[in-house]
């Protein structure tokens, strides 16, 4: 199969959908000639013209709102928010408008809107350009959330998102844009709400998503060298969340490590842990449910500091091994 980057896969998905469906259009800041801050839409203006690929003023509320209104009026907008941190500027349009419109109008409208936005730390862009904010939206009924971890998923999930009649927050992983992977040609979808077992194992279930998937796989590899077989589950979408897959892997392994980049407290890891702790899987647990997450801090600029606050391969490996060896020491608080 062809190899392409995560960014290229996104561009391909969006372009294919725009070719297929005249009602799909794309707006955002500097997505035209500039091709987007991360180059995702390079060349799209040339292909689709300024009617369908349109630069906006710096007005995130209006950008998302324009998407909501166009969606309610029957189009299929894809809007880009340049960094996911800026969803805060458009928060009302996302949570009070897009996510509520269908319900509050008694089902009269649907809002087939996709908000694409790069998420995560690791680029030295500091506090206001590095957050992982998925938890806010997982807690918002009426909007779906996707966090693709591979180029193939990026394409398949984006196609699903565009065809979905609901608003979707599509959190692209900044640091994955240039990673390569095999991507099927043409029209295929990756369904929402279906996690993927990225590595089979039996000793420890590692539940993760987004850019942490690769780190968890690496850690699982390292643990395997020590005779411990970790299973790595990639959730792929967080809303809906594949709770069955979570329960399945926990029942299989009996020990579980949850890993995400977003800061720990109030993060999606809590939802995963609660899902486990309030399910039949609870009875299969051989050990407490561990979370290894970003620290509860804004993201600093300095590279060493920045690196230090997000889970890394050695730390993940260590947690896997400690869980497997029943060595974990459980903090009081």
């Amino acid at each position, binding site marked *: 199969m062809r190899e392409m980057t995560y960014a290229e896969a996104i561009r391909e998905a969006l372009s294919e959908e725009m070719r297929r469906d005249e009602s799909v259009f794309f707006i955002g800041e500097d997505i035209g000639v500039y091709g987007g801050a991360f180059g995702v839409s390079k060349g799209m203006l040339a292909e689709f013209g300024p009617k369908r690929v349109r630069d906006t003023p710096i007005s995130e509320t209006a950008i998302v709102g324009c998407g909501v209104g166009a969606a309610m009026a029957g189009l299929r907008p894809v809007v880009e928010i340049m960094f996911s941190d800026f969803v805060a500027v458009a928060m009302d349009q996302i949570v009070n408008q897009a996510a509520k419109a269908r319900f509050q*109008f008694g089902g009269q409208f649907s809002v087939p809107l996709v908000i694409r936005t790069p998420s995560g730390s690791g680029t030295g862009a500091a506090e206001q350009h590095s957050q992982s904010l998925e938890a806010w939206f997982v807690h918002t009924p009426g909007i779906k959330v996707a966090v693709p971890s591979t180029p193939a998923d990026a394409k398949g999930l984006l196609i699903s998102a565009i065809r979905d009649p609901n608003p979707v927050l599509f959190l692209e992983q900044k640091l994955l844009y240039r990673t390569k992977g095999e991507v099927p040609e043409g029209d295929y979808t990756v369904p929402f709400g279906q996690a993927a077992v990225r590595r089979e194992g039996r000793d420890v279930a590692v539940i993760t998503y987004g850019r942490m998937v690769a780190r968890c796989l690496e850690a699982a590899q390292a643990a395997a060298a020590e005779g411990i077989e970790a299973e790595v589950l990639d959730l792929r979408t967080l809303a809906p969340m594949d709770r069955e897959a979570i329960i399945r892997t926990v029942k299989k392994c009996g020990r579980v490590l949850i890993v995400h980049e977003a800061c720990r407290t109030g993060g999606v890891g809590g939802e995963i842990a609660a899902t486990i702790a309030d399910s039949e899987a609870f009875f299969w647990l051989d050990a407490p449910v561990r979370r290894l997450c970003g620290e509860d801090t804004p993201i600093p600029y300095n590279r060493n500091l920045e690196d230090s606050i997000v889970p890394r391969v050695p730390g993940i490996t260590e947690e896997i091994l400690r869980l497997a060896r029943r060595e974990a020491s459980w903090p009081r608080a």
Partner: protein
Amino acid sequence: MGVPRETLRELYLKMAQTRRFEETAARLFTEGKVHGTAHFCIGEEATGVGVCSALAPEDLIAQTHRGHNQAIGKGMDIRRMMAEFLGKETGYCRGRGGCMHIADASVGSLGANGIVGGGIPIAVGAAFAQNYRGQDAITVCFFGDGAANEGAFHEALNLASVWKLPILFVCVNNYYAMSTHLSLHMNIKDISVRAKSYGIPGFSLDGNDVVAVYTATLEAKKRILENGPELMVLNTYRIMGHSKSDPQTYRTRDEVEAWKKKDPLLLFRNRLVEAGEFLASDLDALDAQAARDVAEAVEYAESSPEPKVEEALQDVLA
């Protein structure tokens, strides 16, 4: 008056319906039949009715929380409005939204919004869609004087101006944002000057003159389809409190009384009679019809079923 007699009749009837609808709704409140809140537009009927009556079915509107006149103006069904007000399954939002969120896709209403200013960017999106499809239609976006201080207002007008979208921004200036007088929330007197920030036409007119409002909208629509957005400010007054629980300590009785003399329904009636367009008895008949329509709506709403609790989680997602 430069407006066909049939239109004058329609304008009068819709205003009378709006008035009667709200008076009745207020009574239902007092009778404890309503859980929640409501915002009445008594005194402002000429704005929504005048504007929306000038629109075609394919034109869209984004309403405000104070939008019964806008809804009736655009042709919404009073029965389903009343049913929504009472939270019934037959209401426009199946009882999920209440009157702060009535919408009617079938007549082109994108719904009322509980977030002040929240509907303005959405209206821009709707106008984008009309433009994108090459439709010969516009979107009308209603909002209040208070809403014109939200960031959403600014971003939306700017975006519409850059893209020359077919949208009429209608600021219903009733001089108050809840308890806060215009002079305390803006440092300008004429809101229409804000159009200059976007290089689009802006104008103010007497929002209690339904014929002027109607005519201005017709003309604006023509220009907008050619040249892009405009900002129309309709100066009017809210006679009732802001919402059901407003002690109204922020304004004088005299001020309210003075505006009551400019009651848009009364002014219109007098003018129609004076101009010889209608007999007073014709208008009485329209008032009676409005009363019947609303009474029927109440009956419809009251006899409608409650939403089923088992269905509470429907429509979160499509």
